[in-house]
Each structure stands twice: as structure tokens, then as C-alpha cells.
């Protein structure tokens, strides 16, 4: 149900683009206004979210330590653990690098199986890690590849990336490996939500919407490149893109409808981004269990909102138990006699 609703939502977006840019002919809205708005919302939304997180305090050092502490006796130092339990800033940068670039924690993933005869097995389970890596990196490559539309002359790096990505030389024009791989990865990410019962149980529309949205973006892009009736002349598309980056937008004639669908869906993705789970892209950098060094016994880290609290002092304690303490030969600050005198003095004063 959640998946169907999400799919309907994305299909509705496609219809909106088709009606708007096609039947109603308001190409300017879909080619210029919405994309500008989307970029604006993305940038402002992203920054606002990051600043919002950044403003929230970090009262305690709570790294999740995933290896032997490096700040321990020299006899226990283990040079590999400094990346899983760093004690220094440099080590923490290393840990974050592995986390962000190689998805270190996901690499640890295991799968639990309960077998008959009370035997529990844990097996390494790297599929999620592999497909997550494929998805993120192919997405990155595709985004970089698209910069060819927004640059003139096209930087050598992008031309080179294009050549490498299409080096298999199958289909005409040659198939981009990244496009094929991203579909495979997205398929995996989607199908596990359909078919793994626990995944189906925890999945929300907020998980299906971005998947359907990105799949639709990829498919519409591929249709424009490979499939006869959808093929789009790239010259006017480039003209539109260059107009946008040079802030002199024009909407040239002869851009196919598929392009507007593609462009609109991507605009929606940008607008949706700051308000969604996709913000994990920024949030991962601010996660206190990962981005703090494990040095909280060595260095003092003040809590910015630390405040005085009500305490039960030793004096309160001794007052409570003095007699018993004296009886048990435990040392006391105030002997019993003094107490007795004080009480009688107090009594006298009262009188």
C-alpha cells in the first residue's frame, strides 16, 4: 500500500510534467522557473538543515568505539583500531573518511539465522554494502557526466569520464555503464523492500518515493538517449542548460517532452531533498557517535549547558547515619558529643 501510494505519487508527477510542458505548452515553467526554484530550495534547505543541526549542542563525547582504544596503555596499542576507535582528530578524520567514502559500518553487516537445535549463526552479509556503494557512486558519476550540459567548453575530465563510462561500446549511442549499474542497484534496493518481510514492515512512503523518483529519472534519461520515439535532440537541451547557468534563460524550440519529464522529476528530487531522509548526505558528517575522538578521559570537554544540580552531600549523609557510623567505628567529621551539645544549645536558644 505504502509502495503503491508512492508509485502513484511519482506517476502523477510525470503526468503533471507531460500535461504542463506538453498539452498546456508552458515550457518556460518546467524548463526555467521550476528548476531555478528547485535549486534555490535545495541550497537554502540544505544549509538551513545543516545549520539547524550544527546549532544543537554536543554536551558529551559519545563515540561508538569499534575497536581497542588508542588512548590506553602503550602495551595495548593496535595500529588498525585507530580508524575504528580513534583517539585523535586525525584518526577521526580517517574514520569519517572511511565511513563517508567506503561505508565502513555497513561493511560490517552480518545476517543472523536461527537453526534448529539451538544453533545461532551469523554470516557476513555484504550485499547491501555492495549495492549501496554502486548506487551512490554511479549516481555521482551520472551527476558529474551531466555537467557537460552546463559547461562550454566541456572540461577534459568530463569528456574522459564519458569515454570511460561508455567504453563497453554496446548499443548506439554507446551504453553508459553507470546507467546500467544504477538501475541494477536501485532494483536491489527496491526489491528488498518488497520481498524481505522485515524490510517491508519498516519501509515508509519516504523510502519508496525517492526510489521511484530516481528510477523514473534514470529511465526517462535513458529513453531520451536510446529509444527511438523518445530520442531528444541534445543541441537545444544544451542551449537551455547554458542559458540557465548564465542567468539568461531561453526556451529553445524542439526539445522533446521526455526531457521535460526528466528535468521536472529531477527538480522535484532537489526540492524534496532537504526535507527528507536524503539529508543523511549531510547528517552523516554530524553524527556524534562517529565524528568525535575517544579522548574523554584525557581531555576536558565542557558541556555548554551544564547547570548546578541538587546534591546529597557527605554532610547530609553523615547527619543521616552518624550514630550508626560511630557505632561501627567509621570515622565521622562531627563527633556525636558535639552533635549532642549543638542540639542542646539549639534547644536552649529556642527556650
Amino acid at each position: 500500500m505504502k509502495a503503491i501510494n508512492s508509485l502513484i505519487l511519482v506517476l502523477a508527477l510525470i503526468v503533471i510534467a507531460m500535461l504542463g510542458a506538453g498539452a498546456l505548452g508552458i515550457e518556460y515553467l518546467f524548463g526555467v522557473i521550476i528548476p531555478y526554484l528547485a535549486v534555490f530550495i535545495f541550497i537554502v534547505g540544505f544549509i538551513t538543515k545543516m545549520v539547524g543541526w550544527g546549532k544543537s549542542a554536543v554536551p558529551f563525547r559519545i563515540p561508538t568505539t569499534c575497536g581497542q582504544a588508542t588512548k590506553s596503555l602503550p602495551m595495548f596499542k593496535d595500529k588498525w583500531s585507530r580508524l575504528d576507535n580513534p583517539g585523535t582528530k586525525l584518526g577521526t578524520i580517517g574514520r569519517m573518511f572511511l565511513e563517508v567514502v567506503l561505508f565502513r559500518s555497513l561493511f560490517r553487516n552480518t545476517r543472523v539465522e536461527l537453526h534448529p537445535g539451538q544453533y545461532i549463526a551469523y554470516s557476513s552479509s555484504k550485499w547491501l554494502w555492495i549495492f549501496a556503494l554502486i548506487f551512490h557512486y554511479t549516481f555521482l558519476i551520472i551527476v558529474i557526466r551531466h555537467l557537460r550540459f552546463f559547461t562550454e567548453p566541456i572540461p577534459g575530465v568530463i569528456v574522459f569520464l564519458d569515454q570511460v563510462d561508455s567504453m563497453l561500446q554496446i548499443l548506439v549511442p554507446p551504453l553508459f555503464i553507470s546507467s546500467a549499474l544504477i538501475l541494477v542497484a536501485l532494483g536491489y534496493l527496491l526489491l528488498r523492500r518488497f520481498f524481505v518481510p522485515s524490510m517491508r514492515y519498516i519501509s515508509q512512503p519516504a523510502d519508496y518515493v525517492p526510489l521511484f523518483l530516481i528510477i523514473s529519472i534514470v529511465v526517462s534519461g535513458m529513453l531520451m538517449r536510446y529509444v527511438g520515439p523518445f530520442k531528444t535532440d541534445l543541441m537545444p537541451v544544451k542551449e537551455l542548460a547554458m542559458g540557465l547557468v548564465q542567468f539568461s534563460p531561453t526556451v529553445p524550440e524542439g526539445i522533446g517532452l521526455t526531457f521535460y519529464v526528466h528535468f521536472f522529476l529531477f527538480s522535484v528530487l532537489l526540492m524534496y531533498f532537504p526535507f527528507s531522509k536524503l539529508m543523511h548526505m549531510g547528517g552523516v558528517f554530524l553524527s556524534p557517535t562517529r565524528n568525535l575522538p575517544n579522548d574523554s578521559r584525557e581531555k576536558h570537554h565542557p558541556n555548554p549547558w551544564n547547570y548546578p544540580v541538587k546534591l546529597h552531600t557527605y554532610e547530609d549523609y553523615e547527619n543521616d547515619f552518624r550514630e550508626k557510623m560511630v557505632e561501627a567505628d567509621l570515622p565521622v567529621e562531627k563527633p556525636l558529643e558535639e552533635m549532642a551539645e549543638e542540639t542542646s544549645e539549639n534547644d536552649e536558644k529556642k527556650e
Partner: protein
Amino acid sequence: MAISKPDVLYRNISHKPPETNWMDVPLEIKPGRYCYAADPEPLEYVGMPNPRKWNPLDDDWKLPENWKETVISGMKERLEKFRSFKVFMDICVRCGACADKCHYFIGSGDPKNMPVLRAELLRSVYRGEITKAGQILGRFAGGRELTENVLKEIWYYYYQCSECRRCSVFCPYGIDQAEITIIGRELLNLLGLNIDWIAKPAANCYRTGNHLGIQPHAFKDMIDFFCDDIEEITGIRPEPTFNKKGADYLFITPSGDVFADPGTYTCMGYLILFHYLKEEYGMDITWSTYASEGGNFGFFTSHELMKRLNAKMYMEAKRLGVKWILGGECGHMWRVLHQYMDSMNGPPDFLEVPVSPITGTRFQHAASTKMIHIVEFVADLMKHNKLRLDKSRNDNLRVTFHDSCNPSRGLGFLEEPRYVINKVCNNFFEMPLETIREQTFCCGGGSGLNAGENEEIRMMGGLPRANAVKSVRDRHGVNMLANICAIDRATLSAMMAYWQPDVGVTGVHEMVGNALILPGEQERETDLRGEPLPGKEEDE
């Protein structure tokens, strides 16, 4: 409620969730899985809100009139006070990596014990009541209204999380359910929704200095009683000091070690060690009856109560004028000391950077907090051959080591206990890698959940640990499960009795106490438990 036999319980575990949307699955508070409600008295004693008699099985939880506003404004406040909370509310992608990492999920199959879903219980309220998207789109944006039933569900499942952080190891963004549970429980405590097994020890600790409510004279009596036993076994009577002003070092350990078997044997180990250090090296360590608790049940209640209970350690160290503090074997105690104490109640400038008076080793990594773990202190002594040990006295033990959640995932205290164990026993075997070190499993009763009435969920949660012990028992004949945590010693004992009755539980310092040769001691016939030492069995 009687709990079913282990094989029946095991057979009935199903990891298949229902087909219904989880938000529509009605809450059922199952006996055996929840803890009794906190009585009003302990809440009153520490000044927590809404003290009253209530019962989780009743419809009416006697919530204060404005309970909903209290929770929502409490959430808003904590979103700004804890970046962890704010980020963790926003960035989960529900990838499911954490789902089968929780011991309570593995053992119970209850899908709301998957960390991701336990977090969603609160996250859905955050979305539905606080974020704009959730307020407008409701369920489609994963939001829901905070109703009494939602609150009850959060209560039920947030007291089925032992704050062990295993999920956090596997999360690609480091989302830590422990952190969410800690804050969730803090919100529940705004409404007086604590459990008895946490509220009472916390109040006891506030008044008497320890969770068990042991008063000063009784505390001393108990230690004297251990000294009697030690004298009987070794012929030598340790002479510990209490509340001694001008002592060089203060020792603080969880009070469970003073009160409950088999922790008491660990406590005897400390006493033997301290006597040895005093006789051989003149090291003057004192115990405090005021700061007689290493553990901190405030940590399971609220950040504020944690700070109030923890403050005693530094106050007492200052009053007695010691150089630095030595801490006993305990799990969550050490997380509080390592990650919270200095920021809450430090820095203690009146103390010195810990230096071992015997080896001269400077514990630079504790330079600010000025408190070191007895296991690292002893490891250093052993490294420098400062202890005379007879390993063979532990030859009847075939030992494996259970990493406690907090020392492993909150400190990275992994090699220290292994080093000490290997110095005092000849037969040590590791459990499978996926169940130890940073991937270790909870004992099933951490974070204040070691009550009697929730036995079923404790045995379920203990299953992954018990099963890993089973594997080394079957392969290597392991008969002893060592650990460095007082809650482990209590919880694992019951848990092993249920799943693997032929394996015992011991603290590391019990083994140290057995192996350590006191100057002038008589030939020992028994270990600290009064059982014949290896080779002495025939003499009976």
C-alpha cells in the same frame, strides 16, 4: 508467570513480522516483558515529577493533565540540547542494517524490538507533532499523533532496550538507539513513568550512597564478612580502611559486588589484591561508604539524575584528599565515568594525573578525569611483574570472556581484561567474533532491566550471548564465563542457569584473587568460593 522451557522458547521464535502496518498493530503489554511501575516514594525522594501508584496493565496511567505538551516541549528542548537526538531523528534511511543486531529482537522476534522500529516509535511522534511535513502529510510522511497508546508503546519498548549500542556499530550513520532510548526515557520520566527496578536503586543511591540501600555500618559489616572468609582460606586477614582521610587512593566499585553472588567473590579478589599492594608496596587504598556505588541508575533515568549521583565520587575524593580514584569492574559505570563524568562534574583539579606508585606508569589517557579502571591498573602491574601469581589455582576453569556492552562500545576496553585473564588462567577461549569485542551481545538485563518480573524478555535477550557460550562449551569444554561488570555477574548467572546451566559466571578479579599469592599465606585448599582447588579434590 512461568517462563517456558528453553527449547520451547527457542522453537517459538519467529522473525516474521505481521502484514499489517506497524502503526496499526495494537499494543499488547505482555507479562514477562515489562517491569513494574515505580512506586511514588523513590520518585519523591529525588524530586522526580508525578509520583503516584500506577500499574502499566491498567488503562489509566494517571498521567498529569498536560502530559502531551510536557512530552512535546520536552522533545523540542532536547532537540536543541543533544545534536545526537536531532540528527538521529532526521537521517535514518531505514536500510535495515540494524534490524537483526538487537539481542531482544533476535530472542523475541518482536519486530518493534528492531532498533530501527524502536526509534521510529519516537521518530513518528517527532514527525507528526514537530516537523511541518509530518503535520501536513501525517502518515504519508511517517508521522503520527502522540496519543496515550503511542506513549504506552514507547514506554513498553524503551524499557526493552538495554542501551547496549550494538545497533550503532552497524548503522552507516552511527545512529545510536541507546542515545534515543536515554532521551526517550528522560521524556517518560517527565511524566513519572519510570520502572521500580530503576527508581528505587537511584533513590537508594542518593540517600545511602549505593543502589542496594546498604547503610554505612552494614556496608562495613559485609566487607568484614568477606575478610573472615579470606582469612579462613588464606590464613591472612585483609584490613581495608573506610572513609579514611589522607589515604592515597579511593576505590569505588558497584555495590552489587558487596551484596550479590558471584560478585562478592570478585569483591574478595579486590580485598586480596589491595592487601597485597599494601603489604608489598605500601599502597594505601580506602573504600568509601558515602561514595559506595560505582554504578549509576540515574543514567537510566535522566542526564540530571546521572549527574547528581555521579557527583559523589569527586566530592568524596576531595573530602578524603586522595590523589586519584580507582574504579572497579562495572559496565555502565565505566561509560558514565569515561564519556560523561568529566563533562558533568569535572574537571577535578584537586586530583593528580594517575600514576601507578608501583610501576611509575602514568595513565595519560585519564589525565583529565583522574580515574582509572582496576583492570588496566592491574594489567600494568602484571606487565611489570609486580604480582606473584599461581595460575594453576585456576586450572579447573576453562574460561571465555564476555565483553560488556559499555566498556567495549563506549571505551574500547577490549585487550585489558584479556591480558589480565591470560595472566591468571591457563585455559582461555574466545567466543565467535560476531559475538565479542565491539560486536558483543548484552547480558539481557542491562540499563536497569534486571528485574524479576521481566524474566521472559531477559532470557530472550540473553539468548545470543548464551548461544555463543554454548558454542565454546561444546567445542572447548568452557565452564566459566568471565566478565568485568556487576550487572553481568547478576544477570548472566540467571541467564546461564536457564540456557547453559553447566557454565558459571565470574568477575575477572575473582580469578586474580585466586591466583595472587599473599605474602605469608597458608597453603590454600579451596578457591574463594570455598570449592577445592585443582589437585586438592582428593583430600576431602
